[in-house]
């Protein structure tokens, strides 16, 4: 009895550990280059900008920066009159305007892109002649660099020379030319439209991949069960593609909250569309308030972190690849 126990301890336990150790080692070896690359290109800059946000750095005095604590985030001065004046990002009206712009943009664009993407994916999932070509063609907006397509749209939406105004006028939909990108009433709509035009294909392809995982015979079973196509969509298709949909939405959400290039090119200096990324870049480089801009980008990072964590937790997203 005792002998067998000793034996089992001697043989089985180390063998299992050896296996585990081997696997862990292999995993480490494969992961190491990526971790290293991430640390250099993402980790280090991130830590640097967090550090700068706690200093009085400016573009010309980057290396003489001194630690100032939370002053960039929130600070106050007591005036001789006895009045206390607050400064810092957290009480900056421009910053909060950018936060709301970002939230508005993110929510509207992701919701619309998901709906349109789903619709496009459902169409592309049907069998028809030339499906391969259509699938490739639909990716074109996504393949064009954003700066290029933003500039292209800026020209098309131009109030004097743009083709959009020209067409709308010829069709009799508008009488006066509209400065889509510059007019405060329309600039957010213009940005949203271009972003949806550009990103819907990306959503569609991610959702299409999920749709193609749904076995065809399930639809046939539903057909025999006599389930109405609309019901099939909500009761069968949607639950089955939900994992893919959730992952697609989180990718888009992160991307949308960081939006910069499109707005920078299409509607520069519009307070209607200025987002967190745009305003922090402005402070970092245009206004020579490097530390202040760093504080803003740090807040953006924290904001994204909270949002993504909450999303994963509440939407029960499975990032480990299993379906349920």
């Amino acid at each position, binding site marked *: 009895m005792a002998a067998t126990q000793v034996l089992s301890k001697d043989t089985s336990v180390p063998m299992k550990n050896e296996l585990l150790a081997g696997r862990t080692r292999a995993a480490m070896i494969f992961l190491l280059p990526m971790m290293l690359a991430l640390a250099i290109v993402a980790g280090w800059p991130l830590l640097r900008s967090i550090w700068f946000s706690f200093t009085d750095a400016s573009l010309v005095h980057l290396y003489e920066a001194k630690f100032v604590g939370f002053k960039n985030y929130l600070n106050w001065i007591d005036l001789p009159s006895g009045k206390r004046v607050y400064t810092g990002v957290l009480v900056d009206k421009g910053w909060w305007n950018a936060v709301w712009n970002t939230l508005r943009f993110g929510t509207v664009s992701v919701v619309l892109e998901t709906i349109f993407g789903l619709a496009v994916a459902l169409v592309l999932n049907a069998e028809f002649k030339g499906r391969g070509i259509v699938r490739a063609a639909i990716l074109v907006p996504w393949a064009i660099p954003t700066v290029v397509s933003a500039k292209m749209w800026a020209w098309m939406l131009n109030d004097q020379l743009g083709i959009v105004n020209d067409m709308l006028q010829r069709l009799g939909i508008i009488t006066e030319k509209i400065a889509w990108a510059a007019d405060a009433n329309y600039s957010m709509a213009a940005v949203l439209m271009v972003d949806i035009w550009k990103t819907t294909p990306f959503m569609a392809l991610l959702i299409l991949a999920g749709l193609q995982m749904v*076995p065809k015979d399930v639809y*046939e079973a539903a057909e*025999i*069960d*006599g*389930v109405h196509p609309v019901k099939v969509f909500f*009761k069968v298709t949607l639950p089955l593609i939900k994992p893919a949909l959730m992952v697609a939405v989180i990718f888009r959400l992160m991307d949308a909250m960081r939006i910069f290039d499109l707005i920078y090119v299409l509607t520069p200096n519009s307070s209607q569309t200025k987002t967190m990324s745009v305003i922090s870049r402005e402070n970092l480089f245009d206004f020579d308030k490097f530390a202040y801009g760093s504080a803003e980008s740090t807040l953006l990072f924290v904001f994204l972190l909270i949002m993504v964590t909450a999303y994963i937790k509440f939407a029960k997203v499975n990032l480990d690849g299993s379906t349920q």
Partner: protein
Amino acid sequence: MANLVLKNVKKSFGSVNVIKGVDLEIKSGEFMVFVGPSGCGKSTLLRLIAGLEDITSGTLSFDGQVVNALAPSRRGIAMVFQSYALYPHMTVYENMAFGMQLSGGSKDDIKTRVEKAAALLQITPYLERLPKQLSGGQRQRVAIGRAIVRDPKVFLFDEPLSNLDAALRVATRLEIAKLHHSMNSVTMVYVTHDQVEAMTLADRICVLRDGLVEQVGTPLELYENPTNIFVAGFIGSPKMNFLEGKFAESYKAHTIGVRSEHMEFVKKGGWQGSVIHAEKMGSDTYSFVDVGSAEPIIIRETGTSRHDVNAKVSVAPMDGKVHRFAADGKAI
């Protein structure tokens, strides 16, 4: 209860003709089995009956009413797929109840029907599980249960047992046979390429080849009176022995066929040859005898054989058990 009639039914996918004109009557309450080699169009024919594919030409009628354009759900059918086709995100109970819930059955009614079907198929303990938490055999029973719950007039099965292992296949075959007896007014159409399944389950078998019906009849009719070489070779295991040339000439045929159980070892006369191999199954022995024909003749003996490998033997067909075929393959 439904009587199915197919009149010159054809189906083509683009320019490919898959079903090339099938005339067939499936009687009410009958267990009809479609057999045939892979790719002959069995599944396609079944899916035409189900309404999952459109009929290119010809008519399909249920009880005298043409249903070519009727939606699958309105034909009074239920189908069991080879791949089970369960809804992966629904529990066993929900899978079975889904169709009824949407057609507006009362909750209690649905519950009693699902529970009755579950009891019949012995899947009651699994009602709250997801399909992925079940074994293949259990999933197949859920699929059958879902079909039963629909209370169909016609049951359609597309190779329901092909994903199961041998033992489970025999057990589930029995379940299906019992099901047929207990629901004797329900017409069943069953697709398989396994002729043992066909022989054991069918009231009548329809042998298909290349989109056409070769022969329709009871299992024994097909076994005893195949109308052509194809059916003769397809039904029965091991395959019927076929001999041509000088062997067939004395019977005034192009080809003759003799089943292994209708061959015997004889003292004198018959065909001379030597035993090249013997398969000893315990209950039977199959001896392979080379008599100079294209393929060795298989001879079945009950029990163990008295003939060793390489032994010189004479074999002959039993009286009246020789099938004769003309050059075009038709039985004479």
